[in-house]
């Protein structure tokens, strides 16, 4: 096993451990920490696969943005009288069977054809050249989508205040 395969195995293990913690814990702080572990594992996987720009974006957008958003939302919707906030869960055999079926299906379809990637180190300026060149339309559309999402959030929150 090469050093790259070992690094990939470690990052994927961190991802799965974080995902398992997010799913199984009923403790709110542990859920946030587990989600953060998963997101950092994803960033590390991007780094090992040779894409430092994606890794940094993942840390900035998810660990620095979405995770803080989740934390704020949890703090806002928890009543101060709650002694120890718990995440309500209804563990169910049917859901476990469905999730297991999804895992078996994905592993059976992707496992044989998806060999582990050989890292291709991509400099950020190469990604920029693609985004502002052949993918310019997609790049601009994402900008419009972000603006629409920003306006939607403002409208949704304002609507909640009015009622």
């Amino acid at each position, binding site marked *: 096993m090469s050093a790259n*395969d070992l690094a*990939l*195995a470690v990052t*994927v293990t961190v*991802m*799965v451990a974080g*995902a398992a913690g*997010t*799913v199984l814990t009923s403790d709110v702080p542990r*859920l946030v920490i587990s989600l953060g572990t*998963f997101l950092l594992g*994803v960033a590390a996987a*991007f780094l090992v*696969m*040779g*894409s430092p*720009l994606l890794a940094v*974006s993942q840390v900035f*957008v*998810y660990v620095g943005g*979405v995770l803080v*958003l*989740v934390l704020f*939302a949890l703090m*806002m*919707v928890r009543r101060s009288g709650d002694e120890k906030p718990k*995440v*309500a869960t209804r*563990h*169910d055999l049917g*859901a476990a069977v*469905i*999730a*297991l079926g*999804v*895992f078996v299906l*994905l*592993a059976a379809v*992707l*496992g044989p054809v*998806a*060999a*582990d*990637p*050989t890292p291709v180190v*991509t400099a950020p300026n190469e*990604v920029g050249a*693609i*985004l502002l060149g052949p*993918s310019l339309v*997609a790049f601009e559309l*994402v900008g419009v989508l*972000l603006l629409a*999402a920003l306006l*939607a*959030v403002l409208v*949704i*929150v304002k609507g*909640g205040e009015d*009622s």
Partner: protein
Amino acid sequence: MIVAIGCAAAFSLGVYAVLTRRDVIAILAGAELMLGAANVQLVAFALSRGGDGAVVSSFALIVLVIAAAEAAVGMALVVTAYRRTRRTLVDEFGEVSG
């Protein structure tokens, strides 16, 4: 193979979270698990098939931005729904509007 199995496991755990969690924010966390696992699998699969690293990265970056926008709108909906109804459990929401 390791990445494919790991991403499949993380995605399945996300599916399980979406199906079993009753708290809306925890359901959104499950959706984030699925999006993250799918994005890693996308990059790994493209690179293993000889894809151009720059094109793959730009594609994954766009997916990442769209997922972040989805999370922001989702959180706004959760906070607004809580302010209107004082509830965060999905089975307590009995109607779509009103």
